[in-house]
């Protein structure tokens, strides 16, 4: 066993070298490449056969990305539209009708007239017939032309704070337009320009982010599952006693998923570009470099999980808890990190996707170059090396037992 161990540590060192310097490394080994490859390729082929046979793996690889794209591309949408606005016009004057028209003209509101006081509005909110109510007072027409400040009441069902916030904003924009129409202008003008995503589309944000989620899922979840499965069925030992070297086993096991992860990543980028029409402003090669580093981190994390887990079930739970949940929750994928409590903000520094998301989003939408992104890319490299070192160490230990 000690021979195996010594060989393994040599092997892992070359592995590290490969991770950072690229794939030309294999040839510099004193063993001929052909011999290595002749042993690795059958393992790769065997792994592909496994994948083809396993329904569950097929679902994760093919159905999940499509499912996720549809869900995050359409179902998770922060852009509000067609909000039911209850218009309670006590004035019924030309001036008030002009204001109503201003609201009808906004694409955010669907205006319906109602009558009654506050209790009627409460009922409207309870029945969920309206999310917002605008009350125009009886003396509106008289006051609006005069020197006294005029006001209308805006009531918002603020249960959903996010929507309420945006509604408040849109209502103010409509009022400003109305004021400008009457020739009343603020003493200075505020001009807002929105960079990178001028129409504030949610898909611009979520669809590129999905690359991180899918890469993580395939690299970490499937890698850890495949090794745990061999362990569970006892076939890992059979492979270990064959003349195949452990390094070749790992390479053979990892390469198919590397391919699939990349294929899925590219699929998502294509859908993002051509279906959701998210622009890719920056350098595509830089995105792919980011993907490569991220997949490296995810794969080494998957290896780590597989060395810790004895059964597929534990591996799956570990992968879900250790990778998927943090990637969804604690990376800035959906929820902004800056809004989290301080403690959880620190935790996010340990989540690889936190560093990968700015790379995908930055290159795609901001046209970021490597000069902007050296920090997150560097962090990914460091994390990859770190996990690889730990899992190499753990892998040796599991072989000894």
């Amino acid at each position, binding site marked *: 066993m000690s021979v195996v161990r010594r060989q393994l540590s040599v092997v892992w060192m070359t592995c590290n070298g490969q991770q950072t310097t690229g794939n030309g490394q294999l040839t510099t080994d004193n063993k001929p490449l052909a011999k290595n490859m002749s042993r690795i390729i059958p393992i790769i082929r065997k792994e592909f056969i496994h994948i083809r046979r396993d329904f569950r793996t097929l679902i994760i690889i093919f159905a999940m990305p499509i499912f996720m794209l549809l869900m995050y591309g*359409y179902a998770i949408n922060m852009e509000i539209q067609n909000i039911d606005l209850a218009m309670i016009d006590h004035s019924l004057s030309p001036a008030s009708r002009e204001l109503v028209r201003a609201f009808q003209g906004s694409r955010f509101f669907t205006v319906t007239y109602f009558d009654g006081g506050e209790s009627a509005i409460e009922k409207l909110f309870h029945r969920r017939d309206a999310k917002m109510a605008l009350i125009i007072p009886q003396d509106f027409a008289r006051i609006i032309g005069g020197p006294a400040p005029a006001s209308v009441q805006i009531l918002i069902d603020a249960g959903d704070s996010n929507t309420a916030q945006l509604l408040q904003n849109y209502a103010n924009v409509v009022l400003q337009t109305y004021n400008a129409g009457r020739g009343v202008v603020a*003493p*200075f003008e505020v001009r807002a320009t929105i960079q990178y995503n001028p129409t504030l589309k949610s898909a611009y944000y979520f669809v590129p982010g999905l690359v991180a989620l899918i890469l993580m899922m395939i690299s970490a979840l499937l890698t850890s599952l495949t090794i745990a499965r061999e362990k569970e069925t006892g076939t890992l030992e059979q492979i270990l006693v064959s003349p195949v070297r452990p390094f070749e086993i790992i390479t053979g096991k990892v390469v198919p998923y590397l391919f699939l992860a990349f294929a899925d990543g590219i699929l998502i980028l294509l859908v993002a570009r051509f279906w959701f029409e998210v622009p890719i402003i920056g350098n595509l090669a830089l995105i792919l470099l980011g993907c490569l580093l991220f997949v490296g981190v995810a794969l080494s994390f998957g290896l780590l999980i597989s060395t810790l887990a004895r059964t597929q079930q534990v591996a799956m739970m570990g992968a879900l808890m250790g990778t998927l949940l943090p990637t969804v929750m604690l990376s800035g994928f959906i929820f902004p990190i800056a809004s989290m409590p301080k403690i959880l903000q620190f935790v996010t520094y340990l989540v690889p996707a936190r560093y990968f998301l700015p790379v995908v989003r930055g290159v795609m939408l901001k046209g970021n170059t490597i000069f902007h992104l050296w920090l997150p890319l560097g962090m990914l490299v460091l994390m990859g090396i770190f996990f690889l070192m730990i899992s190499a160490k753990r892998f040796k230990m599991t072989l000894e037992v």
Partner: protein
Amino acid sequence: MQRILYLLQKEFRQVFRDRAMITIMFVVPVVQTLVLGSVMTTDVKNVKLLIYDADGSFASRELCRRLVNNPYFNFVGYAESASDIHEALDKWQAQIGLFIKPHFGRDLERGLRPEVQLIADGLDGNTAGIALSYAHGILTAFAQNIAVINPTNVPLVGETRLWYNLNLESKHYMIPGLIGLLATVVTMFLTSMGLVREKEIGTLEQLMVTPIRRAELMIGKVLPFVIIGLVEINVMMGVAFLIFKLQLAGSYWLFLGVSLLYFFTSLGLGIFISTLAETQQQAMFISWFFMIFLMLMSGFLTPIANMPLAWQNVTYLNPLRYYINLLREIFLKATPLNFLWNEIVPLAVFGLLILLASAMKFHKRVS
């Protein structure tokens, strides 16, 4: 009846003997409520703000001061030029920039309507929209302060009143939803796993050869999880009250009642999954798939009204949609029962259908 009681006794013994089960049931939901409750927020805070004040007059400095002192913004510093703002946005160092042009103060005094520029990073559309609205609000208030001096130029203002959630904190909206979500996880997962485990180790066969009837077997299997589910939502509500300072505006009994109604559906789903799966692993996997669908199509994260119409129609098939709606209505708005039938009736129908379907699939025999 006697037989059901015996079965109940057995189930509870089985559940409480398993240390891992107890952890899954009680520790995990508390931790999840704590962590997810603080993470799942759509509040926009600490928006990184960069300012380039090319004027430096009294008015411009006052304007900057108001933005800098606002708790929603995290002021990262003054820029040296307008292009610095763009560069900072490129480098993720700022999310919103304020650019005050030279002679702002002078032009303001002369009534020349100078321009103030806000530049926002729109990548995260939601954050950008809300950050801009904060900034706009502050600038408008500043403008109104100045306008008071000039009485011929009185703008119409909206007096906004926010009902049910005065401070616009998203936790009041997200945590009731989270309770619904976690209650689903617990009841659906536990039922399916429990049934499949008996299948796996073969004790279900033993139960099937006893004189117990199919209905009794199902009731005996499901009832413990109904009770556990009820205990659990109370535990989560405790966390919501104690840690997140939530309040239950509506009736507690209505809350329990609709939860009970919903559990028929979620437990029915659990039984249904157990008839599809042969191993615990499969059960877990199928449950997971169901869960993602239930969660994303329930309006838990973003309002259903924002979805495309076809998607909105699909959500009517999602029982969790109704339950989460009910929880939010009861927790936040104290909506009385007579306005909730639109949710309660579909839930009852779902519960009935799913229970019937699973009862038909759940045969008291082994294949």
